């Protein structure tokens, strides 16, 4: 280095950080004699104990993220989606990760963070949802035929960020069936219905609804922000991840396949 580079003197920016973290979600009222112990807690203004008495888990789940309790039909739609997504299934990479955690004798409390991180990926995971929600919100008033043409023209490089595509080379039948069930519900919304018309256009070409697309459509119809979509997808799939991880947690390491040396190919 011929000449010493000249840099600025390091100085604090003295940014005006807040003295207290703000939340609109949760209030904790202190006890009389210990400011660290809460005597009552409120979720968006509702007493938690009263919620326990009067409302379902799905109602309070919706309240937590949306700030208001859902209409009965909205709760029914969300609950149906939660059931549909409760387990990505034993062949999904996130569940396989959970199984590896279990059979590897990792502490069971690590199953959830490890497997949900994998379920946050951009293929068949939460990483697709925000883009899919934005895609659906943007195109919900466009002609499905034209949008289908655009998707088909971008094959095979198309990623899954629309919520529609190939699933192992063809149409995901379970996704299609789940949508048919959701469409019978009174709260099935415009975006889900539009998405289904798009899926019908795509189907003869071997493309269709992806599970992530269903989640994106229902989240969008229920008014969730696209930024929340990926996390919600992870949350809704979490029970299946943990169940499969725990199922293998007391099994020997031989309870899962270990690829033989003959089937392990190092490519040059």
């Amino acid at each position, binding site marked *: *280095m*011929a000449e010493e580079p000249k840099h600025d003197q390091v100085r604090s920016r003295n940014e005006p950080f807040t003295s207290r973290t703000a939340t609109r979600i949760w209030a904790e009222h202190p006890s009389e004699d210990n400011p660290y112990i809460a005597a009552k807690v409120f979720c968006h203004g509702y007493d938690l104990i009263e919620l326990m008495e009067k409302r379902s888990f799905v109602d309070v789940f919706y309240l937590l993220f949306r*700030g208001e309790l859902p209409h009965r039909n909205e709760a029914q739609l969300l609950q149906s989606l939660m059931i549909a997504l409760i387990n990505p299934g034993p062949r999904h990479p996130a569940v396989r990760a959970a199984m590896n955690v279990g059979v590897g004798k990792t502490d069971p409390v690590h199953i959830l963070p490890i497997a949900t991180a994998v379920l946050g990926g951009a293929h068949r995971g939460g990483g697709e949802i925000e883009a899919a929600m934005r895609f659906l919100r943007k195109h919900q008033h466009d002609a499905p035929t034209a949008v289908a043409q655009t998707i088909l023209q971008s094959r095979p490089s198309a990623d899954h960020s629309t919520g529609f595509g*190939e699933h*192992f*080379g*063809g149409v995901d039948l379970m996704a299609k069936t789940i949508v048919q069930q959701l469409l019978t519900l009174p709260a099935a919304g415009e975006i889900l219905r539009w998405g289904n018309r798009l899926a019908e256009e795509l189907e003869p070409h071997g493309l269709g609804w992806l599970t992530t697309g269903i989640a994106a459509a229902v989240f969008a119809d229920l008014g969730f922000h696209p930024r929340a979509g990926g996390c919600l997808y992870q949350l809704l799939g979490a029970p299946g991840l943990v169940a499969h991880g725990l199922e293998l947690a007391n099994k020997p390491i031989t309870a899962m396949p270990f*690829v033989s040396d003959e089937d392990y190919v190092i490519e040059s």
Partner: protein
Amino acid sequence: MSSNPRTHITHSDAGHIARLEQKRGKIFSRTGGWFPGKGVYCHGYSMLEELVGKKSYFQILVLNATGKLIDKPLADWIEGIYGCLSWPDPRIWCNQIGALAGAARTSVVAATTMGSLAADSRSYGPYTLLAGVEFIQDALRQHQAGASAEAIVEKITAANRGKPYIVGYIRPIAKGDERLEAMEKFGKKLGFSVGPHLALAYDIEQVLLRRFDEGMNINGYMSAFLSDQGFTAAEVYQMFAGMVASGVTACYLDTYHRSPDTFLPLRCEDIDYQGAAPRRVPDAD
């Protein structure tokens, strides 16, 4: 179950199914593997005969992250900058994950890995190196096509309502970056000279200092230096995936060895509730 067989048609691509069938039960690796009794291989090298004890840990780390076996001085430089990228202050966001994890009595591995994951951020940490390297490599292409450092900065500020939002310059919390001089001295000691990316990075810094009173940060320095060493943005991101780990571990241990709940304890009133006032829960309809 539907009895209509037409509902089970997937319109699948037969070629796609055939490709999946070829991969069933097999692992294909471009990286390496362990063959018990025969050896462990990493990008064509026998790990135990050619790497362990002969190459440094950071040479092996970069080999795993990029497939490139780099020379020792460059590995030493990377080790040096790793020391700059993680320090034991729990006010830093990823480190605070470690401190909170210690307070909550997680395992040290959970704390360290989750803190590292927290640094996968658009504001700081390894993810920002993608944009840092892409910026300086694009800037050099513009420079070689005739654009001055001034013009490169102007193009960006014009697109950002006059703000010099360039990854690698400007830093949260503080202006300037004390790590640059330390690394510049170390780089000189290792025999590295200033390459074209770094030279341009310094020119851009001078423009920013003059016009906005903002300097280069460690991201800008390492993005330019590593670009001069021939790395792509993705390779740099991959090499630094665990760059904050040791500071997170340190912050974890500090709180792990103190009483639970004593790390930044919060009274109920220390949370500023700004939501709905208390209201009656309506019966489910």
